[in-house]
């Protein structure tokens, strides 16, 4: 496929997390990207990571996950620790769902939760901050500062609200998730905007937005393939690793309306098929919410 010389990487390498030697406190850091061609085809070198997503306010979290993890939902640091130690996630994605509350202003909690979760975990951390321009700046500043030097993966930058995330990433040495709405050209544009803001290219991870299986997942799948093909063809502005977070998967009717005894099986099957397909399309990091999905994905990736 590639017209490039075999030495040239199609996808830039991006390091997530920082060990003590690298200026952070993680026991490991991960390099993603570094792929040379199509995913899962022969010379494919890239590492694939499974993230378990947790949150600081479970009110809007899928009931099937709340039921499965029990009391952990009320305690992000225990939940994060279980994600690594009990469920085997490569890393945790901490979603600050508390910031979605009207009039949110508990900024100090953002900093302390970030610190506590970092304390409770030994691997790199992804943070999903607010998505409200009113509070973005302060939220990203607080979590960015609390994790200074840890090379957190901070999300989510979008075309019309990327400055707060970028500023926090630049000030405290983190990485940025650049999300665009299932469109190759918009993904490229956002990467250019971030670069012009000063975010180095090896600190950007593309999130092409992932629709749930059965609800438009095919668009996301094809956009991931197209982004990867563009990178292989030499487009530097798309040569970043990708992250996929099919977060709507557990909210769909098929999972919600499953019989109680089948809820976990249904949730895991839908998350698994979606997440695994995202890897096949070229994602380096896939975020899921059900702990059992993590285990099944890890088993397949390690086979």
């Amino acid at each position, binding site marked *: 496929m590639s017209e490039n010389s075999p030495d040239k990487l199609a996808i830039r390498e991006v390091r997530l997390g920082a060990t003590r030697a690298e200026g952070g406190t993680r026991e490991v850091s991960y390099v993603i990207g570094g792929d040379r061609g*199509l*995913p*899962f*085809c*022969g010379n*494919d070198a890239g590492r694939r990571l499974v993230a378990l997503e947790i949150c600081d306010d479970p009110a*809007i979290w899928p009931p099937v996950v709340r039921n499965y993890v029990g009391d952990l939902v009320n305690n992000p640091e225990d939940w994060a620790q279980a994600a690594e130690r009990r469920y085997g996630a490569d890393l945790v994605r901490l979603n600050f769902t508390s910031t*979605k509350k*009207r009039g949110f202003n508990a900024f100090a909690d953002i900093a302390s939760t970030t610190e506590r979760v970092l304390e409770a975990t030994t691997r790199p951390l992804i943070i999903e901050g607010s*998505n409200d321009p009113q509070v973005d700046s302060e939220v990203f500043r607080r979590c960015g500062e609390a994790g200074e030097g840890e090379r957190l993966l901070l999300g989510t930058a979008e075309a019309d609200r990327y400055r707060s995330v970028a500023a926090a990433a630049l000030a405290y040495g983190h990485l940025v998730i650049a999300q665009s*709405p*299932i*469109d190759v050209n918009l993904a490229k544009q956002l990467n250019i905007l971030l670069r012009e803001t000063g975010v180095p290219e090896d600190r950007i991870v593309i999130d092409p937005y992932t*629709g*749930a*299986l*059965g*609800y*438009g*997942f*095919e*668009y996301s*799948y*094809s956009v991931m*393939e*197209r982004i990867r*093909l563009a990178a292989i063809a030499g487009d530097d502005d798309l040569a970043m690793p990708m992250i996929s977070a099919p*977060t*709507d998967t557990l*909210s*769909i*009717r*098929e999972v*919600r309306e*499953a019989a109680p005894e*089948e809820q976990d*099986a*249904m949730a*895991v*099957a*839908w998350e*698994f*098929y*979606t997440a*695994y*397909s995202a890897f*096949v*399309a070229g994602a380096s990091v896939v975020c899921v919410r059900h702990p059992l999905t993590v285990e*099944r994905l890890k*088993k*397949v990736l390690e*086979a």
Partner: protein
Amino acid sequence: MAMKALDIYKHLPKTNCKKCGYPTCLAFAMKLATGKADVEACPDLDPGAKALLGVVTRPPVRAVTIGAGERSVTIGEEFVLFRHEKTFYHPPGIMVEVSDTWTEVEVRSVVEEVRETVVHRVGQDLVLNGVAVRNESGSADRFAETVRLAGGGSSLPLVLISDDLAAFEAALAISGQYRPLIHAATADNWEPLAALAKQYGSPLVVRAGTPADLAAITAKCAEAGVADLLLDPAPGSLQGYITVATEIRRSAIERTEPALGYPIYLDAGALGETDAAVATGILKYAGIIVTPRLSRASREAALTLRQNIYTDPQHPIQVTPGVYPINNPERDAPVLLTVNFSLTYFTIVGYLEASRMPCHLLIVDTEGLSVLTSVAGGKLTETMVADALKKFGVADLVDHRILIIPGYAAPLSGKIEDATGWKVMVGPRDAADLPEYLEKEWKT
């Protein structure tokens, strides 16, 4: 490589005689170029030109039909490596396996499940396709008996899996008239198997560890008169499968190796991780996937993935425009506007239903485009919104005159107010934020 329409045209008689069913030779050439017509349709082509055009114009992956009647499944006839390049046409047949060492009850329960499973999604009925019978008993009679239990091929398409010629002969005596798929011809046994396949007109799987070996055996089988072939690359791992299947599909569509221009066969149970293997087959070029019995959850996810991947990107599944009641809305319930892109619609409905908030969802026809792209491309306009409100009689459904529009349609809010006379509220961009938005902002 494929020939362009004009290059093909040069070889045609240029008489515009219409005997091929097309109005002109050029129209016929254009159909040939896209693999949509057969050179045989032209009665006046000399044999040299026919041979030349036959090679370059037939579909790069041959269409093969397994089974007979209503439930038969046709696979292959694919033209691209990635679905965004055009589309994938023929979804893989999923065949659930049974063993001839099982009891009658066990076999029947799988057959029943394959026959009865239907998943209804967005106006389509998704089904499992057939039954694969595995000869593990060492007995030809037992194999034939299990094939008979599986319906003999008359109701559901069958795959016959064995390495014993006598077993195939016994099984084909029962099922041979229903085009069962025979698995598998290898370097050692291709000759008698090709003869059997030819005798019954059955499709035949060729199994070998490398594309070169596959090509060598399929070429011989084709020469022996078996036209309908499948390729089993006998992968040792999922990654191995993806690598070799990609190589095979590429050789086929670039026409670098005509002997690889056949659908691919994948034994999903052989690789340990059945769900991952089934998904891999769906995503990456399998024509037939043989799988151990799947749980209900896996079955639904797999069938849905197959539907998604084989949806034509040029013709997204669309929702019919109209007013949709969500959670039994009354006259004070909010009216929400959105587009007829299936992803948008189903995502919103998912969140709204989960929230239990009653509302009316007004769908306008944006030709299946998302909110963002339809606003940018002028496919969502204030006139359309005004027309839709009128056409679907929304004013008769509610006592208020307030319309909530998607966050990405905010630039249209003033124009929509002017064109409709309704008060416009700009909702969130993300469907996930809708329930909370309604809870806070909605009061009549």
